[in-house]
């Protein structure tokens, strides 16, 4: 891979919660405009790896480099300012604020000058949110809340978007819709690291995948080279 346009590189990353070592030396990288899917069973450390990149949990060793800057020890809000934006697994919206306020807040810290244009962009991706802009976030369905969460991240004009199970807990109809959105973001040039348990969604949009197992990268490769044969992968992940 051409290292010239490498956006993120993770090397030898170790993360522990107390005495429990969850990541035991993982390595991967992402190039510009690439979409990489992180696969793995429940508890394999997928969210932890995104949280380490975002600075929400500290690394006990290893290095995380974003666009040439070592961000391993950087505080979360500084990593955010560099353009590494996460959509968390729990979504973590502001339930009592309106959809529009939730979205605007995405750009309140990093992207204030462009807030109106970005809002336009987000409402283009999610016309449904435009209709519900004055509704409280807590009154939305799970799928709509996921749209707000993604929209809020898009507001910040991410240089690297970290998506933690965008389809998690959603009805099939929403999974397709979210899949289309992720595809649209990709077509518009986004660089994404996406944790996803829904393999058909993951393989539809991702260029590459890595598999986490027991805190290590156990496998990985180009989605194209799988030629639609996913059974092998399912075995590698879960068995």
């Amino acid at each position, binding site marked *: 891979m051409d290292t010239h346009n490498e956006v993120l590189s993770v090397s030898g990353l170790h993360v522990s919660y107390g005495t429990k070592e969850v990541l035991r030396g993982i390595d991967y990288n992402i190039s510009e405009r690439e979409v990489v899917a992180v696969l793995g069973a429940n508890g394999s450390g997928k969210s932890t790896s995104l949280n380490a990149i975002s600075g929400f949990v500290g690394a006990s060793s290893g290095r995380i480099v974003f666009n040439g800057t070592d961000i391993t020890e950087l505080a979360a*809000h500084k990593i955010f*300012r560099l353009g590494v934006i996460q959509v968390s697994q729990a979504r973590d919206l*502001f*339930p009592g604020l309106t959809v529009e306020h939730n979205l605007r*807040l995405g750009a*309140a*810290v990093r992207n204030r000058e462009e807030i109106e244009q970005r809002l336009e962009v987000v409402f283009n991706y999610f016309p449904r949110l435009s209709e519900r802009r004055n509704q409280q976030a807590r009154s939305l369905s799970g799928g709509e809340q996921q749209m707000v969460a993604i929209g809020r991240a898009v507001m910040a004009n991410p240089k690297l978007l970290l998506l933690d199970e965008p389809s998690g807990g959603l009805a099939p109809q929403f999974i397709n819709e979210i899949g289309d959105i992720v595809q649209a973001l990709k077509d518009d040039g986004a660089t994404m690291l996406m944790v996803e348990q829904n393999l058909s969604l993951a393989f539809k949009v991702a260029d590459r995948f890595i598999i986490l197992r027991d805190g290590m990268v156990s496998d990985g490769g180009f989605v194209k080279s799988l030629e639609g044969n996913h059974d092998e992968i399912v075995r590698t992940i879960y068995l």
Partner: protein
Amino acid sequence: MDIFLQLTLSGLSQGAIFALIALSLTVVYRATTIVNFGHGDFVMAGAFFVYVLVIYVELPYVFAAISAVLIMLGMGLGVSRGFIDPIKAGPHIGFAMMSISLGYVLRGGARFLWGREVFPMPRVFDIEPFFIGNLVVTGDVLFISAIVAVFLLIFFFIFYRTTTGVIIQAVYQSERGATLIGVNVRAFHQSMWGVGLAMGALAGILIAPISLLHPDLGATFLIRGFAAMTLGGFGSLGGAVVGGLLLGVAEQLFGFYINSSLQDITAYLIIVAVLVIRPAGLFGRTVTVRV
């Protein structure tokens, strides 16, 4: 009727100060989930700074007041950084212990410097009392009510109508969410401590000219702040204000119509009654308060 209105009026101006104290406690509580048991002593410290700056440094009251607010703002930032941040990993009760202890240190410091004397503060503004019908409006009542009213307008305007306010509401609702939009939550906690102590200082500054200062003043303010919060609903900003005003009025009415010795225990009675009858208070959301 006249006497009732007169009592209500002075109750409201007393209550305005309780409202400020309760609101400042709430600001810190909502941001950090910490109940600052030392808050009364910080209010007292604010009042003492004004006293020192007016009497010894001979600053005009207005400058002394602004300086005291800034000093307490700095103290809030310092307390958060120096004494709260380092104990975050520990048990939550540690925050209560810490805030009580810091309060007592301030109180002890004041006793050490000034003894147990009681200090009158020179009158600040000689506003002539005026009449509305038979109702006497004293300069103090006017001064306190006006300052608090203006302050509350600004406070609630910022909270509900500005981007900064929306960010504060957001952090109150979800700290995880706030980190996801790039808010430096640690700095936010520190600034809310600063704002809380500065607001407490404002209360102290308003009290200073109308009451006798002594190092033990804090305890009486703390309990009134708590009573106002309990009455309004723990954690509710608007509730803190309404609770404070009602408490002020209740103290005056109870003291006059029932027994003057009741005035001092009104706050305790209200806490007990509200907790038994309606634990969430007037505007309370059902929250569990950890100390």
